[in-house]
């Protein structure tokens, strides 16, 4: 089973693997959320929602629902 951004803990980094275009708004891609890029979880609000990420140098927040749609691979 592959893991998604929602599985990452605070401070963990991973590489974005893939996601379905329908589930992820284009704006997120434009902000740098593309396969192959690095993502780090900076912080999450109570109930792990929303999640504050650093994707490729851009700091942004997305909801848990979206984070669950983006599969990633942990480092190492």
């Amino acid at each position, binding site marked *: 089973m592959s893991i998604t951004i929602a599985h990452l803990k605070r401070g963990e980094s991973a590489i974005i693997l893939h996601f379905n275009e329908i589930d992820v708004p284009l704006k997120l891609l*434009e902000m*740098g959320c593309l396969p192959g890029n690095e993502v780090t979880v900076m912080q999450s609000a109570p109930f792990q929602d929303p999640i504050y990420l650093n994707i490729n140098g*851009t700091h*942004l*927040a997305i909801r848990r629902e979206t984070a669950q749609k983006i599969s990633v691979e942990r480092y190492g």
Partner: protein
Amino acid sequence: MARSIKVSLIGNPNTGKTSLFNRLTGLNQKVGNYPGITVEKKEGICKLDRGIKAHILDLPGTYSLNTTSLDESVVIETLLDRTSKDFPDVAVVVSDVENLKRNLLLFTQIKDLEIPTILVINMADRMKRKAISLDIKQLEEDLKTKVVLVSSRKNMGVEELKKAITDFKSLDIEPCVNASVIDPVYFERLRKAYPNQLLYKLWLVITQDVNFGKIDRNRDLTDLKTTSFEIKSEADLKRLQHKETVVRYQFINGLLKKALSIDTATAKDLRSRLDRILLHKIWGYLIFFTVLLVIFQAIYDWSGYPMDFIDESFASLSSWLSNKLPAGPIADLLSEGIIPGLGGIVIFIPQIAFLFLFISILEESGYMSRVVFLMDHLMKKFGLSGKSVVPLVSGTACAIPAVMATRNIEDWKERLITILVVPFTTCSARLPVYLIIVGLVIPEGSILGGLLSYQALTLMLLYLLGFATAILGAWVLNKILPINRKSFFVMEMPAYKLPILKNVLYTVLEKTKSFVFGAGKIIMAISVILWVLASYGLGEQYTNAEQIVTEKYESENLSEKDLNQKIASHKLEYSFIGYIGKGIEPVVAPLGYDWKIGIAIVSSFAAREVFVGTLATIYSVESDGEDELTIKNRMKEEVNPILGGPLFNFASGISLLLFYAFAMQCMSTLAIVKRETNSWKWPAIQFVAMTVIAYASALAAFQILK
């Protein structure tokens, strides 16, 4: 020879466009709206060398030309339509040195439109701290244009930018990315079908139709859909757009590998330390609450002094005028109608200024996004978005910009609900009414050892009431509106910054000005109308008022002053406005009001802040004009015609406060809601529901408390 150049500032949100705009134009700017829509448009003039004038346009922030919102569509409309009067001679793309990679995405798209484009890399002052170094030569070569390093905070590089704008003719207009690689066959066919058109422009127009049905295209492109040309499905187009984004990022990554280096070891920063506290699961919320508290205490307390001063000045101006001017209707109109009416608006300048001061500091510093982050989960439960916090907070200034600020909410249902409930938040127009009523009916004294006065506390409760009603309303709407939520939410978390003083001051100045002139004009007009209606009348009771009153009080031996007062009251009662007021009275009497308050409420439907001015005008017509009383003192002396005792007592005061808290008394807001939802249905529902809630709660309050 004077020439003029049209310049558009374009860029991602928060890259410093407005700061740069302020630098370039100084106070030489004006704010308007794009025709037909209500996106704010800032225009200004900048003088360049050789007597050339640059008309600078500050466009709304956008991440790309693939627009999904009205705000962003303004940018693409401006760039696609060569016949538009805003079409730029040169586009200045403003980017943030810390987010260069992402910012360049938009740049490459604009460059593909073959418009002369200058790349501004802003915030150069932060490079040292972040250990960023840039190879500008390399960038210029690969991007095929002029690149200027700027710091609008430190006023660095602005002169160089001006020079680059002056020399825009020498800019290369060759694209730097070839978008057609995403589907060569399709693009080739497109080119064949429209040989005279720019290929990338065609592509944008086609994809715009997916996201934005009603964009006004160039006339020569309108037939695009009607021809036999192959139409791709929406999903296909979306996929191609994703592909385009990937291609552009590939280009940018390759480029930045050569031209940009960041020493990440030194890049540990303020952001993460501050975020750890401000986004803390407990501290974060406590801090947010404290911030709100400080704002309300400031608005109530600090602005008290200038307000008292203004109130008294207008009262003495009025009596001075009526003594100096030759007696007659014009003098009366001025001293009894226009001056008190104007006083009723000028008095609120200190508060409005404070409010916008705080809001703009919160936004400038980057804290507002943290609030959005903290609140999203909670807001989602009520059918709102974390982003609804911004409209709800800026709704405390004015519902109109707040309704417009909902535009960045991705989900339509969340957006609609936010629009519908925003008018419940306590806007600054309610403040005048609250302040004067609170001052009249809430006793002095304080809690927390003098830190928070009862009056400030009441005011804060009123604000909380506004928010609570908005949230509750959202919850109900979320349950009953049959619309699906997609629950998309993407928000950039900007770096923390010390606000630039100039930006804050300009915002305060601009908003205060528009409040005074916007509401001021309405209040002038209404005070003229009210004064005339209150000063003239028909019928025997009016024309023979003197005789009737004198006869009535003959036995009581009143002093001349008291008698004159009685005559004035009698006349007012039988003036035009008296008749209208008496007509309203049965409706408002159960709420504890007399007919004068009824008139004030009715005229408040033009704009709430008219309330105080209206009462001021009515009372000054009624008084004999010699005593110099402030509005507040006049209100204190009013007597309830049915129950006796002071008209403004605790019961009627609370009832009035509740009425103003809930009633939808702002036509401008209704007009904006109509525009933003594109139907009369929503503003109509809003109006009826809010007014019913207002009447019912005011009625209940008065009947229970009296």
